[in-house]
């Protein structure tokens, strides 16, 4: 049996193993050095690999990402941390105008093998700006690869894959999953980027989720089973590229789908999933694809958080609405 570790520990292990395997891998950001990051994800890296391989920078996110672009241009594989979701926004111009476009701009002559790690999404009762779900901004930007692990094993494996990838990856780490322990086999094969996984097969309906929404989706499926419905769960893992094949195969087989995501729903990744699944599976659908997402409001204060987040009940309600019976 593989050892149990938290997602934070799994990511730490992935960074370590990648750094040990390749001298070109360097880690930097705010507080990632001696402190080991505010979530301790980079714990011990400076101590074990030296200040040249894992270091703190001045406090400036565009600076961090911009420097990573340059280092990637010059033979390195930078892995940078944005301290929280909303604190990646100062780097937005660097991300959209350079990280995403440099390979294309140079007709593939300059690729940027870098990873932007972002502690991601909510559910931790954080104060404002600490719980945003920003995947839509990145997923909409051509040239970025956007990953969001939901299990500790995937966090390890996908991060290893991301660091080895020739193109830039935005790596979204669900904060609320950082500390629960699960088995992680670091010797397992690295999962391919771009492939979803069916976490639970189901004949009646399909829940499509990623990152922090996978656990509530699984819990909802569990609960639905109790209530007599066989609901499956697809964990996307990779938002870009999108695994149409796996997702559509499931939806075609069930004829009903609900997308679950924390971000506000308007013009979101959930919208994309609903639209593309419908385009591809229209004649298999018994009901429109439903979306269970955050409301179209700024991430709320901690005391209102539970009303905002897509939880088991809201998912089950959406499943109930999938027109199981002819209208009366």
């Amino acid at each position, binding site marked *: 049996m593989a050892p149990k570790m938290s997602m934070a520990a799994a990511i730490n292990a992935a960074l370590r193993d990648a750094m040990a395997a390749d001298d070109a891998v360097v880690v930097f950001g705010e507080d990632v050095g001696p402190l080991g990051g505010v979530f301790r994800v980079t714990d011990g890296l400076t101590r074990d690999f030296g200040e040249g391989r894992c270091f703190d920078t001045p406090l400036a996110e565009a600076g961090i990402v911009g420097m990573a672009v340059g280092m990637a241009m010059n033979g390195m594989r930078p892995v940078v941390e944005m301290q929280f979701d909303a604190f990646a926004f100062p780097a937005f111009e660097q991300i959209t105008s350079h990280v995403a476009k440099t390979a294309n701009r140079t007709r593939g002559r300059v690729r940027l093998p870098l990873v932007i790690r972002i502690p991601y999404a909510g559910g931790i009762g954080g*104060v404002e700006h600490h719980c945003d779900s920003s995947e839509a901004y990145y997923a909409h930007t051509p040239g970025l690869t956007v990953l969001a692990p939901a299990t500790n094993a995937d966090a390890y494996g996908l991060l290893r894959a991301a660091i080895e990838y020739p193109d830039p990856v935005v790596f979204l780490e669900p904060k609320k999953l950082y500390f629960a322990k699960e088995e992680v086999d670091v010797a397992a094969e690295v999962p391919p980027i771009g492939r979803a996984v069916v976490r639970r097969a189901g004949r009646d309906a399909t829940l499509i989720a990623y990152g922090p929404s996978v656990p509530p989706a699984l819990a909802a499926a569990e609960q639905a089973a109790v209530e007599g419905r066989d609901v499956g769960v697809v964990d996307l893992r990779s938002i870009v590229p999108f695994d149409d094949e796996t997702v559509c195969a499931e939806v075609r087989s069930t004829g009903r789908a609900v997308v679950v995501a924390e971000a506000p729903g308007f013009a979101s990744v959930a919208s994309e999933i609903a639209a593309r699944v419908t385009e591809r599976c229209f004649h298999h659908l018994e009901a429109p694809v439903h979306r269970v997402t955050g409301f179209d409001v700024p991430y709320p*204060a901690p005391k209102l958080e539970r009303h905002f987040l897509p939880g088991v*009940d809201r998912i089950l309600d959406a499943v109930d609405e999938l027109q199981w019976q002819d209208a009366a």
Partner: protein
Amino acid sequence: MRLLGHDGEPTGSAPLPAPDVLLDGYRRLVAARRLNEQAQALVRQGRLAVYPSSRGQEACQVACAAVLEERDWLFPTYRDTAAIVARGVDPVEVLTMLRGDWHCGYDPRERRTAPQATPLATQLLHAVGVGHAARLRGEDTVVMALCGDGATSEGDFHEACNFAAVFAAPVVFFVQNNKYAISVPLARQSVAPSLAAKADGYGMPGVLVDGNDLPAVTRVLAEAVARARSGDGPTLVEADTYRMDAHTNADDATRYRTEDEVTGWGERDPLTRVRTYLTGAGVLDETGEREITAASEDMAAQVRRGLAVEAPVDPDELFAHVYATPTPQLTSQRASLRAELEDEDS
């Protein structure tokens, strides 16, 4: 710039304020310290989720509020709770954010105090805008804009200083250099001779002041406010101070700094030297001290009482303020949440 040495002896570089003025300042210092300690205690008791303490920085906190008129504006950060309270905002309201009730606990218009800014340095630009708007209308409002040493590395700091200088906006940029940005020491933030030196690059005066010296900080800030008010534009003031507590309660400061360093700064405590001086000057005796302590205890008790009440938060508030008129989308989302909650209740 220093007026009062660590030992409470006047340095003589400029006259000290009148004893009663300084006594009043001392009263505020004690209140600010008590607020910091009370909030920390509330965190330990689980009544506050988090508190970024300004213990050790109270002279800065008190001074930046004291030099402002009612018509001026204060732009604080998450660490400046004591300054906001010194400006007259109810401490219970200020702490609302940190107990998870809402993003900004107070009405920013009431005391002309902007919401506590979390995204670093962003508020400095808002401060410039507030100042420039006032100036365009011919008002003599001054804006006090606070940030930390770490925040000076952000692009927004640069843009704010430059805009203010170019437009001669009535802004005082007050950097509390407390030597750390969470764990990152000043040396990793800047290798400039001082943060005040950054003023050169904007064409504005830059002043470095002992941030644990209440009369000195007050004097320097008052001068900068006067300059701004008279239309001579912004000033960058750097206060040399120290964050005595960890970044927040969630932080483990032993990972990045030594006990010795902290102790060393403890000897430069902003309260002690004013107390020493006032006592020496015969303006403060035990009765006075007791009185001041009692007042601060009253305030602390009021804070405790205020935070003991668990105010229910209405789920409708999720949707109520996003737009002046909710969009049809929000109206329908609110309706579906209401329906959900009714289901739950029934």
